């Protein structure tokens, strides 16, 4: 039953990503040229509702349906990993025109070439795991 929920959430997310054009290379390119409000509107409106909702969850102490703890753990403090990791991610986001969610959506949409990007992302994740301890965090 739980897996059905995750599957449905994934399908819904995939449709929203594709239909909002957030999975389009063109929209990412345009965003980094500040050519349209579209992408900023998507992230911004999700964020405004997100901040309000998370505040409500915290103040009313709302629990997940199974009574466990909300997954709202604070991120570890730090600067280097977020800034350097962020910049590396941004370079890749702009170069491939895809971030991790949209990659899978585009694979489903039938773009064979995106499989090379996904393979690269797996390789990058693996590489990070190998040299993690040598990087400033």
């Amino acid at each position, binding site marked *: 039953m739980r897996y059905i929920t995750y599957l449905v959430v994934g399908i819904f997310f995939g449709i*929203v990503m594709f239909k909002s054009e957030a999975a389009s290379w063109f929209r990412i390119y345009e*965003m980094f040229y500040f050519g349209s409000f579209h992408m900023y509107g998507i992230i911004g409106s999700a*964020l405004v509702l997100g901040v309000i909702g998370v505040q409500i969850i915290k103040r009313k102490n709302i629990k997940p349906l*199974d009574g466990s703890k909300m997954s709202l753990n604070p*991120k570890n403090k730090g600067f280097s990993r977020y*800034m350097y990791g*962020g910049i590396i991610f941004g370079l890749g986001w702009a170069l491939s025109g895809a971030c991790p969610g949209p990659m899978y959506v585009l694979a489903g949409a039938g773009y064979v070439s995106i499989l090379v990007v996904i393979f690269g*992302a797996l390789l*990058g994740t693996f590489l990070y795991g190998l040299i993690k301890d040598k990087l400033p965090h």
Partner: protein
Amino acid sequence: MNWIYEPWPWYIAGPLIALVMFVLLLVGKQFGMSSNLRTACAAMGGGKSANFFRFDWKAERWNLIVVLGAVIGGFIASNYMSNNTVAINPEIAQQLSEDYQIKSAGDNYLPPEIFATEMLSDPFIIAVLLIGGLLVGFGARYAGGCTSGHAISGLSNLQMPSLIAVIGFFIGGLVMIHLIFPLIF
């Protein structure tokens, strides 16, 4: 029924993304689309090579199911709900056409100049796709999250680390598009 085929505006898409985050929170999970890459590495035996992949990946199987859903969602949306074109700001489309001979804005969802399957015979295009993906995967794990995990989940929870990461995302993106694209394309 036109709304199904028309692109969905930001004020529909943004709230629906927030909804995805809240549904996941309500089932005890966190919205983040890059953790699955680590789960996949662990499932493929990455634990033999690095501690980072030695964890109970079976407990994280749920995020692989979300990925499977996203693939199905992409299939449904592109085949039954879209004419697969994206119209962007005409000035940007013009600039793309003049500077990079990418003339497909408005006619395609992704530029065939980069993403057409035939282009995979071009080593330069393979390198662009592979390195792009590599930077995304490496950067997302180094930063501890991607657009969903930091820009949506983390910032919604008012996390300073997420703000730093999102600023990093934009520095990287702007450098790539404005400084590196003119050199490589």
